[in-house]
């Protein structure tokens, strides 16, 4: 009995204390806070070129850098499949400008310091992406087994002229306006159009630069496949309406449970509230993004979580009506309903897992929430709710069938 009181009091305290802070920390999707989402299809600029995993990754990174440079908050850029990039940006004032900037291909330049440039500034463009042989940049190791990047230039004479002029000087590599690593020095005049760049790079750094050069040599063309743009006011409106709907629906469900099942119904309601709180906690900890279909899954999940409690309580009532004592009714009810609920939930998880594997965007998010919710429901509405009830019965707090909503007249003699 003491453990029951302590558990309930502590949990209520923790939930009451943390909930406002937690709610603020939930990351909202674009449909709830405003912003836009674009799905790009990427293909090489030249029809003959091939699209590699590395160039897609590089393009995505360059999009993210550009979005950051434009001062947008937390841009999210992810690659999907073999040729897609999904971009999510919130809080943009000039959407048209951002979209135009994003679609421009990534520009690779090798630059030298022009006369009058401050130290560390390189403004004279010596080589552009199209000067490089496509896909030729690679990582190899020098005599001392240090990683270095080998590159190939199409126009040997041009490269010879540049290396001759810049001998002993630095040649900086830029993607768009971002400087990649410390600018290497030109050590020799190179006449065969081939060069290797070394500079104490780690293998990963070298790979990164080689990939960037390859991307610059063959930039990807991005076409918008899908776009969604939500105004901030509209997003807020959707959030408010849906949350309000959820609260009203949930309250009715809780009242229904308490009315139907009396004290066990109150315990079930407590388990449901704990379930919801845990779900929000998981959202914050795992940094999930809450979207509109996500809220819908959330609310429906509450409805389905109630099912576990209903099955248990109906079963307990049934056992009581057959004439069993309260304790053995609760034990038998918990045991049989456990198996029923598990079988039902596992089949639902199978459906959700398939949605997660096959779905994209909203469908994937919805499926994930459903899975998390079912797992949490098993913990709170099966294990936890069963435990609460058993403790109360053992402590003698529940002695009469009436407290379970069972009429004495319905109980058949054993």
């Amino acid at each position, binding site marked *: 009995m003491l453990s029951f009181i302590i558990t309930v009091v502590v949990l209520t305290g923790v939930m009451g204390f943390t909930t406002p802070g937690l709610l603020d920390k939930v990351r909202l999707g674009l449909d709830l806070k405003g912003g836009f989402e674009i799905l790009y299809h990427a293909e090489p600029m030249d029809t003959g070129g091939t699209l590699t995993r590395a160039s897609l990754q590089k393009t995505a990174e360059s999009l993210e850098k550009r979005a950051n440079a434009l001062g947008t908050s937390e841009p999210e850029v992810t690659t999907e499949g073999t040729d897609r990039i999904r971009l999510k940006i919130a809080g943009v004032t000039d959407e048209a400008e951002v979209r135009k900037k994003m679609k421009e291909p990534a520009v690779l330049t090798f630059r030298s310091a022009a006369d009058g440039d401050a130290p560390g500034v390189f403004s004279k463009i010596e080589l552009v992406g199209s000067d490089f042989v496509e896909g030729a940049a690679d990582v190899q190791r020098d005599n001392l087994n240090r990683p270095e990047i080998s590159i190939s230039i199409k126009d040997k004479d041009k490269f010879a002229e540049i290396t001759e002029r810049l001998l002993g000087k630095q040649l900086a590599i830029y993607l768009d306006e971002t400087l990649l690593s410390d600018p290497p020095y030109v050590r020799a005049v190179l006449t065969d159009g081939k060069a290797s760049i070394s500079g104490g790079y780690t293998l990963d750094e070298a790979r990164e630069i080689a990939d960037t050069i390859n991307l610059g040599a063959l930039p990807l063309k991005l076409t918008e*496949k899908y776009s969604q743009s939500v105004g901030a006011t509209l997003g807020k409106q959707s959030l408010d309406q849906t949350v309000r709907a959820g609260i009203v629906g949930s309250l009715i469900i809780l009242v229904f449970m308490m009315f139907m099942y009396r004290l066990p119904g109150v315990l079930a309601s407590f388990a449901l509230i704990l379930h919801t709180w845990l779900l929000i906690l998981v959202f914050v900890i795992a940094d999930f993004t809450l979207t509109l279909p996500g809220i819908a899954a959330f609310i429906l999940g509450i409805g389905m979580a109630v099912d576990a409690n209903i099955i248990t309580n109906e079963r307990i009532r049934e056992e009581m009506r057959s004439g069993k004592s309260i304790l053995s009714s609760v034990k038998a009810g918990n045991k049989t309903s456990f198996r029923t609920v598990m079988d039902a939930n596992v089949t639902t998880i199978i459906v959700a897992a398939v949605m997660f594997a096959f779905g994209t965007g909203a*469908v994937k998010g919805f499926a994930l929430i459903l899975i998390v919710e079912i797992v949490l429901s098993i913990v709170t509405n099966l294990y936890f709710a069963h435990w609460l009830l058993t403790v109360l019965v053992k402590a003698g707090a529940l002695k009469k069938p009436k407290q379970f909503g069972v009429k004495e007249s319905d109980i058949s003699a054993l």
Partner: protein
Amino acid sequence: MRFKKELDFVHLSKFFYIFSIAITVAGLVFLATFGLNYSVDFKAGSNVDVALSKSITLAQLQPALDEAGIGHDPTITIGDQRVNIRYDEELDDTQSETLKAAITKIDDQASFEVNTVDTEMAKELARNAIYSVLLSSIGIIIYVSIRFEWRFALASIVALLHDAFMVVAVFSIFRLEVDITFIVAVLTIIGYSINDTIVIFDRIRENLRFGKQRSYEDLKALVNKSVSQTLMRSLYTAFTVFIAAFFLLIMGGESIKMFSLAMVIGLLFGAYSSIFIASPLWLLLKKRQKTPVKSNPAKA
């Protein structure tokens, strides 16, 4: 709240079979002739949703659209402080910006939601959804066959496909708009439907363990008993989930209206099919089993 007298669900189901078959046929006819009313998620084009600070009329809006100078005629739906403009062709970003600017002139509080989809993407979404349903079905068949027996698996699959199709049929017959959230709704309904059905099957499985069922009459009585034992639970659960979906429908955001509607319809069919379709169907399959009927077909 208990039914003192047990209803003969098996007998009643004959009428419900007819009811379901009738809707299925009507649904197929409508799907074949009119198809579904696809939103931009499935049909190339752009959808512009505008929230306004005041209600406006078509006459006020039209000049702005003309001014934006986007050729093709859009479908316009005007609501309370809300306008939906739907183009059958994709708007590029310049066009959508022009349109926004023109509408902002009428109401500087206007807030927009613009969705544009390429047909290829849409087809892919639909294809993925159908694969999801088929794959989930296979997963369910395997799991239920292991935990129960194949007859339960088959009957539950029929029930869930029935529920999914009923929603599609209703959406086709009443020309309701089908968007990406509709897919989510149908998949959730399938999840709910199987959940609901399994609980009743679990009871049949349990009752099968007690005593031998020698005749069809015994089996029939067993199904009726199992359904009525779980009836209150089926109704209560259907009620609570229905409440959640119903409030989403009447109070939730505009963009999940269709989702909630699909859920509400699907939930009702889900509860109905578990009682009147799935269990009697299992009985029908069981009846064909070669004699003598065993008392313990599945071990848990």
